[in-house]
């Protein structure tokens, strides 16, 4: 049987991907250019017995999905730069309390209100370091409508598996662009649910890492009664200031991502095998970058594209290796240079490095990238 296809917007694809992943609760607040995610889920979630709520503000929406997730529901919120800024404290809460949830950030320009209807990629460092304190981060950055669907499903899987917030970053271009999408059949894509405790309610400790770095999470409203706090806590979930316990918990929460990089990282490489120059691009910008690679190859320049689909954790090992293989790299991003710092940190000067940046609300063109590639070739 032919697959169900449709011509949909990126934001719509994200909403449908969430339903496919088993999302049962959405809380949001209207903001351009992400609002369609909320609009579609307001219609779709009650059909599957889930619920939708429009909260009084961005902070409230983030709070609500954390409350909802603790009852066992897969939970989502969607917003854009200013909204993510407001949610940051509670993203940190989700990190320390280890509550699975997914946050969509349809990126626009900034800072502040910036250019609400224009695209941007300037929230990538915010996705990594936006909340205060030390913490791990997972963020994915799809480049197409189909990939927004599949990456939304993967974002839920990562959130549930690693018991933490996961951010989906795409920009206004793919958020509002329409492309043909093939809806995967049920069961075609892997859907992961959080691990449930296998000990008795009396023995349950919500942060007991004796069997691994990711303790199972019980649900509110089950026979497991437990305490959740944003304070540093011991295995039983209650606050502690004991240095050894605080240190061990902080390190475990970062280790659960670091030790599982292979499972979390996902990249696409295009013509990198013999590449002498590399373009590093993600999200919608990688579409211009791929075009640039083809054009440069026609001119006899051995260009390749590296596209991180998982933006955080940063693909350190592969970029370090490529940095030794190529003469130069160009980081193309719709900001004034953010991921380039990571590339610079990891390549340690092993190749020339240039940035193709743009913040005027227009997409980066292949010509702009090609010009920079020629500078480092």
């Amino acid at each position, binding site marked *: 049987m032919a697959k169900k296809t449709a011509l949909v917007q990126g934001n719509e694809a994200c909403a449908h991907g969430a339903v496919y992943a088993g999302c*049962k*609760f959405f*809380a949001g607040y209207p903001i351009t250019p992400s609002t369609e995610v909320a609009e579609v889920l307001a*219609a779709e979630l*009650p*059909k599957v*017995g889930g*619920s939708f*709520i429009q*909260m*009084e*503000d961005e*902070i*409230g*929406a983030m*709070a*609500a*999905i*954390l*409350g*909802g*997730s*603790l*009852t*066992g*529901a897969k*939970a989502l919120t969607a917003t854009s730069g200013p909204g993510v800024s407001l949610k940051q*404290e*509670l993203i940190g*809460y989700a990190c320390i309390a280890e509550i699975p949830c997914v946050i969509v950030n349809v990126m626009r320009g900034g800072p502040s209100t910036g250019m609400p209807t224009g695209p941007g990629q300037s929230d990538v460092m915010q996705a990594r370091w936006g909340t205060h304190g030390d913490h791990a981060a997972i963020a994915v950055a799809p480049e197409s409508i189909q990939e927004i669907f599949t990456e939304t499903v993967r974002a839920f899987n990562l959130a549930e598996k690693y018991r933490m917030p996961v951010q989906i970053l795409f920009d206004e271009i793919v958020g509002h662009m329409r492309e043909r999408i093939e809806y995967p059949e049920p069961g075609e894509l892997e859907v992961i649910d959080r691990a449930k405790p296998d000990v008795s309610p009396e023995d349950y400790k919500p942060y007991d890492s004796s069997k691994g770095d990711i303790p199972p999470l019980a649900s*509110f*409203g*089950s*026979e497991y*009664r*437990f*305490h*959740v*706090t*944003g*304070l540093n806590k011991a295995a039983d979930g*209650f*606050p502690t200031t004991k240095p050894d316990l605080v240190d061990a918990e902080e390190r475990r929460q970062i280790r659960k991502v670091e030790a599982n990089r292979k499972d979390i990282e996902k990249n696409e490489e295009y013509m990198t095998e013999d590449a002498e120059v590399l373009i590093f691009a993600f999200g919608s910008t990688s579409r211009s970058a791929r075009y640039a690679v083809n054009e440069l190859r026609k001119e006899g320049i051995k260009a390749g594209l590296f596209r991180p689909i998982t933006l955080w954790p940063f693909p350190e090992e592969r970029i370090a290796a490529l940095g030794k293989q190529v003469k130069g790299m160009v980081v193309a991003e719709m900001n004034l240079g953010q991921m380039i710092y990571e590339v610079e940190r990891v390549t340690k000067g092993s190749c020339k490095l240039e940035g193709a940046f743009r913040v005027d609300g227009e997409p980066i063109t292949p010509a702009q990238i090609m010009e920079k590639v020629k500078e480092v070739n």
Partner: protein
Amino acid sequence: MAYDYEKSIRPGKLPHIWCPGCGHGIVMKGLIRAMDTCGLDKNNTAIVSGIGCASRLPGYMDCCTLHTAHGRAAAFAAGVKMAKPEMNVLIVGGDGDGVAIGGNHFIHACRRNMDMTYVVLNNNIYGMTGGQFSPTTPTGANASTTPYGNPDPTFDISKLAIGAGATFVARTTAFHATQIDKLIAEGIKHKGMSVIEVLDDCPTCFGRRNKFRSVVDMMKRLKEVAVPVQAAAKMPAEKLEGKILTGVLFKEERPEYCAEYAKIIEKAKGANA
């Protein structure tokens, strides 16, 4: 026989963090009795709080407890309730947490009328941070950030809750210990958003700066300032000056949010079938 509070308290979690003379323990005991009266199932009850002295209360209670970020309790609670409407959801917290940093969540929780009960422990001060003025610190009173007296006008939390749309609003004080559980129980039984404001005392941060020589003096203030709403109806206006009305201040029946949303689910499922 003495009432058994221990069955509702998590083993090993006492003593609590509150200062000697603080009224929060009185309110917690009232809450325990109220939950008992209503026969709430511990497994199916969430107690949600924000940040501050009062917000430490859930940690002592043997339920599903959620100590959130400053001001956000009502919004976390809304998420719990929406995702699992069959749960009993209680919110506890202080005045600063509830109506300053959490003011927006507070009023919208009242407006939506989800079936939740919010117990506000109003001690007129930020206690945990050492005595800064809150939105309920009386004008002219002393706090660590009002070296020349508090210039701010105050919120009446109960009036705010009524104005915002809560469908059950009651007030009492930590002195009126036997009224606390009755009002909370009535709030829990009420189908909709209930707010129970308990005027509380903070001898450490409010009392010592405001000429209350002892905890007894603070309790006397609570006793003297309270006028039952029924009695007030028969009193002349001049006698009510400076008094605070207690008892059930407001009650009305209005559609409950989750029940209304359940209808949306049925409608959407029907459209999908």
